[in-house]
């Protein structure tokens, strides 16, 4: 569930800290779709929310709280110099403080300003629990993940529909003996090919990333690369080959291509990343700093980056979150609106947004 904001200041649409950023209620079910048009039937789930805890079902709307880290990021993004190499911004913080939602806010902003958003909702899903691992046709050493690649392509298609016809591919790609994509055809064709032939989905993803990088360097579009749980790209996987030997992340084609994307050797956009301990593999629960979660390899690969700390609620934010729940009648317990109840919630959650949400769910 997303947190809304206080009504002490009248609802102004300027982005002051503490004001309400409300998405259109009827159409977009996901925060990544920015248009107010009719929603595509398949709704991409931008964040790791289960279908049961969908805020649109319970409140009829999806709200975000405007907080300082997101505002800081938006300030930086507004002042991006598109001729300089892409700057990497890393959102880090303890568990449940709101890194993913800050990322979603940034994506929404960029989408509204007509950037092309490349959003990977959870990179951890690519390094664990993969049912099919195929040997890549492009490079014999690497492994393909058709299912994950096709889900990502579907999401990419729904979020960036209008860009797909505008961007033209710069090279000829031969898929197999009968199918090939000519130079100058729209990027949508590559995506379609990946969705139709699931075996080639990973290669399609690789081509999409390569083309977008090239196009943004040429200045034809502004690209935002947003990856949640970027610490999955450097670390260990729980995947095994048929002979039970472990798979390193660089042997996965998807991870390899995404690492190239997150490099700062291109210009014309920005890269916003989030660290995540939830869902990470072989990392202790208390780890939240970049060095701990990324490891030496990841830190060196991402260096230099702009770190942005996302912390727990301050008293004003807590108050506003509490008021939002009260106004939407989410807190149904009789004692919840009282001072006593509020103090208890503050104490139990320690102003942690995630914990507060979980507590308010059953009160």
């Amino acid at each position, binding site marked *: 569930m997303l947190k809304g904001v206080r009504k002490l200041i009248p609802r102004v649409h300027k982005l002051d800290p503490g004001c309400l950023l409300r998405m259109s209620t009827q159409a977009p079910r996901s925060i990544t779709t920015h248009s107010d048009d009719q929603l595509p039937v398949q709704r991409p789930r931008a964040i790791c929310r289960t279908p*049961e*805890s969908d805020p649109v*079902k*319970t*409140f*009829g709307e999806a709200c975000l709280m405007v907080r300082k880290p997101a505002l800081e990021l938006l300030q930086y993004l507004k002042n991006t110099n598109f001729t300089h190499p892409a700057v990497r911004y890393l959102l880090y913080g303890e568990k449940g403080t709101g890194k993913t939602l800050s990322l979603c806010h940034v994506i929404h902003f960029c989408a509204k300003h007509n950037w092309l958003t490349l959003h990977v909702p959870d990179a951890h899903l690519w390094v664990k629990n993969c049912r099919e691992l195929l040997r890549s046709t492009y490079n014999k050493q690497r492994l393909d993940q058709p299912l994950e690649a096709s889900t990502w392509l579907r999401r990419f298609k729904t979020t960036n529909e209008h860009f797909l016809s505008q961007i033209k591919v710069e090279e000829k790609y031969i898929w197999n003996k009968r199918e090939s994509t000519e130079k100058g055809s729209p990027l949508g064709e590559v995506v379609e090919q990946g969705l139709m032939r699931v075996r080639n989905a990973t290669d399609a993803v690789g081509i999409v990333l390569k083309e977008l990088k090239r196009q943004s360097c040429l200045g034809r579009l502004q690209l935002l690369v947003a990856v949640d749980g970027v610490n999955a790209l450097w670390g260990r996987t729980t995947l095994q080959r048929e002979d039970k030997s472990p798979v390193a992340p660089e042997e996965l084609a998807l991870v390899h291509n995404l690492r190239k994307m997150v490099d700062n050797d291109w210009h014309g956009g920005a890269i916003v990343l989030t660290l995540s301990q939830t869902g990470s593999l072989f990392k202790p629960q208390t780890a939240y700093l970049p060095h701990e979660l990324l490891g030496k390899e990841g830190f060196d690969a991402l260096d230099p980056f702009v770190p942005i700390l996302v912390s727990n609620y301050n008293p004003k934010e807590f108050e506003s979150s509490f008021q939002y729940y009260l106004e939407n*009648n*989410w807190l*149904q*317990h009789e*004692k*919840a609106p*009282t001072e*006593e*109840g509020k103090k*208890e919630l503050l104490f139990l959650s320690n102003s942690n947004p995630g914990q507060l949400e979980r507590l308010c*769910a*059953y*009160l």
Partner: protein
Amino acid sequence: MAARTVWAAGRCSEQAGAVNRAVRRLPGLTQVRWSRYGPEFRDPLTDKGHCRKPAAELTEEEKYDQDLGKTQLIKAAPAAQTCSAFADPVISKSTNMMMKGGSKVLARSLMAQTLEAVERKQFEKYHAASAEEQATIERNPYTIFHQALKNCEPVIGLVPILKGGHFYQVPVPLSDRRRRFLAMKWMIKDCRENKPRRTLMPEKLSYELLEAFANKGPVIKRKHDMHKMAEANRALAHYRWW
């Protein structure tokens, strides 16, 4: 350890006192479940307001009480006793009944998920309903829980009584405690046994609670079956001697 762990702290001493009095009156009785605390121990207080009153506001009795408390010994508070504003004795009791193998953490999380599921379902219904229906839809999971259990409580129960070498099911009035226990037990048992494979407890329990709130469902049916059996066996009612 404690004689009987009951919901409110006050009842503990009452129970222990009643049992002690019975032991003293009837010489044949020996106490089997007994507390390690002697009679000089006082029960712990969980009322926050009581301790925070400034000295000027206290009455004579309360001042005496506080002074006594400084020298007297106090029993340790049981782990489940809270001064939380959100503590509910009915919910705590059901959580304990759902608990298996002593894992209170799991039982509590299941109960929290159940309440959340009930709330979400009701919210969905609320948003889908028209304005007149919205006034009738109850969204508070706690009221739904209490009302559902109240609807499941049987009015009369059956007890097996041995007479002439045979056991007869005799209709008998049930105490309040027994009725509440039976309602909760039936609810939890139904959710554990009669559900399709791989449905989680919160899902099934929230569904059953909503059905019981509307006076439908298998638990209500079981209550009615109990009533019918009692009605059928009413000729045996004189076998009861208490």
